[in-house]
């Protein structure tokens, strides 16, 4: 509707003149949201149709995005946006269904694990019910099935399986002609996500081999080992896809390198829950990326982002330098900062921060 209309340059220009907003299509959103939340224009609204329990701590949300959503390719992620206690939260999740489901029925699934202490995942698990509407961004990501078909090895860990499920389903549907192997690591067999679907796919799609490995069921942890890879036929000719916790990804990378698999064949999508919040002096500081200026600098101690930017020769907008005037507010795209006035620790995602009172804790990226 409005979002489509304002894609025309003239209409967008006119909309800006009349509404004074850079994205005029969302000018009426507060009213539309009240009448029908599926009419909101700032993002693509998606109605939750069904919530399916995968494991004790993982749910799959079957959602129906508004028809103007542009779809996705298997293996891509999407930003979802929700408002929790008045604050808009953006988080990235993998789409776990095949694009075929979107094309045929207008539905997609998100499979989301509850992270201990995680604000958004816990809210999704505890508060979201069928009928509710969440916001969706456009799909993105380069974790894509090779074209033309080539032999593939997936190594997934825990909820890192979600984009892989989407890919396997897509491959099965097009009867992917090359061999496909999945090594799926889980803590225990109770933690297997989409187990039934994987079994069904393996029996339907003869090129697919699925191996589920429980790491914590024996006395000694059973991690990925060289032998697992040596058993895979023509490993060197495979395109390898990694998705899981950092430990697994690092280990897999090393073992693959040792076996002569080159980096251009290894595709990984980073996946790690945010570190729990703690406030200690020696944890302050970190690598700061000023994305718009293309500047990267290290920082130590309680130097705030404004001081760090200025020390690096940048001149971000600023005013009072004491957290009053918000002249220096800007967008943080990733990383954690501590509010110098309140000691409050920010979330890891995209949000607005006041440079003059934000102290980085670990790597931080801001739009300056």
């Amino acid at each position, binding site marked *: 509707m409005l979002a489509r209309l304002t894609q025309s340059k003239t209409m967008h220009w006119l909309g800006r003149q009349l509404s004074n907003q850079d994205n005029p299509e969302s000018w009426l959103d*507060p*009213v539309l949201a*009240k009448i029908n939340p599926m009419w909101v224009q700032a993002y693509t609204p998606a109605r939750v149709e069904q919530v399916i329990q995968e494991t004790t701590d993982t749910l799959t949300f079957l959602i129906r995005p508004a028809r103007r959503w542009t779809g996705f390719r298997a293996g891509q992620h999407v930003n979802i946006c929700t408002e929790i206690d008045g604050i808009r939260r953006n988080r990235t999740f993998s789409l776990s269904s095949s694009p075929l489901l979107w094309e045929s029925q207008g539905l997609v699934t998100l499979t989301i694990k509850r992270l201990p202490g995680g604000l958004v995942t816990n809210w999704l698990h505890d508060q979201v019910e069928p009928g509710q509407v969440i916001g969706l961004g456009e799909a993105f990501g380069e974790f894509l099935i090779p074209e033309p078909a080539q032999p593939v090895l997936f190594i997934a860990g825990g909820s890192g399986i979600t984009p892989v499920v989407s890919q396997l389903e897509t491959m099965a549907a097009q009867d992917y002609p090359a061999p496909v192997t999945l090594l799926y690591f889980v803590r225990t067999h109770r933690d297997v996500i989409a187990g039934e679907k994987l079994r069904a796919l393996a029996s339907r799609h003869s090129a697919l081999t699925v191996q589920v490995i429980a790491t914590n069921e024996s006395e000694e942890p059973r991690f990925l080992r060289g032998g697992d890879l040596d058993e895979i036929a023509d490993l060197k000719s495979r395109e390898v896809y990694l998705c899981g916790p950092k430990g697994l990804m690092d280990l897999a990378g090393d073992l693959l390198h040792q076996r002569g698999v080159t980096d251009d064949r290894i595709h990984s999508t980073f996946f790690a829950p945010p570190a729990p919040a703690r406030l200690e002096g020696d944890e302050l500081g970190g690598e700061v990326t000023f994305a718009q200026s293309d500047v990267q600098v290290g920082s130590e101690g309680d130097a705030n982002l404004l001081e760090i930017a200025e020390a690096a020769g940048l001149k971000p907008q600023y*005013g009072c330098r004491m957290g009053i005037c918000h002249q220096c507010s800007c967008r943080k795209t990733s990383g954690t900062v501590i509010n110098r006035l309140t000691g409050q620790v920010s979330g890891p995602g995209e949000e*607005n921060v006041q440079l003059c009172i934000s102290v980085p804790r670990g790597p931080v990226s801001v739009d300056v």
Partner: protein
Amino acid sequence: MKKLNETQLQELEQDLNAIRDEVLADLGERDARYIRRVIRLHRTLEIGGRVMMPFGFIPPVFVAATASLGVAKILENMEIGHNVMHGQYDWMNDPNLHSQTYEWDTACTAESWRRTHNYEHHTYTNVIGKDRDYGYAVLRLSDEDEWKPWHSLQFINYILLSVLFQWGVGLHELESEKLRRREIRWRDKLPFLKDFARKGGRQAFKDYVFFPLLTLPVAPIVLAGNIGANLIRNLWSSTVIFCGHFTQDAETFSEAECEGENKGHWYLRQLTGSSNFTGGRWLHILSGHLSYQIEHHVFPDLPAHRYPEISEKVQAVCRKHDIPYNTGSFARQYGTVLNRIFRYSLPDRVRTRLEGGSAPQAI
């Protein structure tokens, strides 16, 4: 100015910080709901006004349409735009309510406003020579400003400023008084003038060209109604804003007093340099809660609808430190503003005789 020693200033700072922290910890859905409700009301009034305006050949409809659009502009400027640009709703992380990207429905660009108002006025509040909002460089409101003959006509200036308020605010950053004194050159102001022309042009296009042309057969009616709506907003916002710092008992400060000041001293200056007025709930909303100017100046980035809730606590802090809390009815406060504009238009000799004293009175 009320004097406090370092320990007292520190205590004042802590007392006010405590009020602020309490509100910050409580921010959430209630505040989001409030601002969205005001936005919904604004959208409804604006659309209502625009739709009714072409039928303005029926006199009561003309009045309703003009009032509807005028009130919409007041709500947008005062309770939404001004407050959003202060960063009162940045915590919501809603890109449409972010202080640094919000643009409002008036001739002044958001960027210029954030510089002159959020930074200059709110940092150097009532410091004569540094706070250019004190008299807007066209009015003499304190005896720290030397009397010049042209000041005797400043009441006319005041009325003109009120009628054309959005253009006055838009051109505030031009610093015409410095251009006149040749302290700065026109060339330095070119980037500002370009931005002003773009934004002012946009506003004029919308209200005085686009909507009248859209309804061509009744263009003069629509044009008249839109001018009326802008006039209503100009007069109201100017009146409210003048009540914030120019009332009888609002104090002014010298640059020397504020050199190297700490946060406690800044707080003290905000408390004594601002003035409130009382009234009903709608008066507060339509003033953008600038009726709680004192609370606003102490906590410019707390959501304004919270000011009535914390006012009691701020008053208690004032009582504790024996700091005057300047409030009164809207009519009384505005009366003292008009009185001040008139008194300072007179030469000091005449004014002091009128005030019944022989020496210049400290304000």
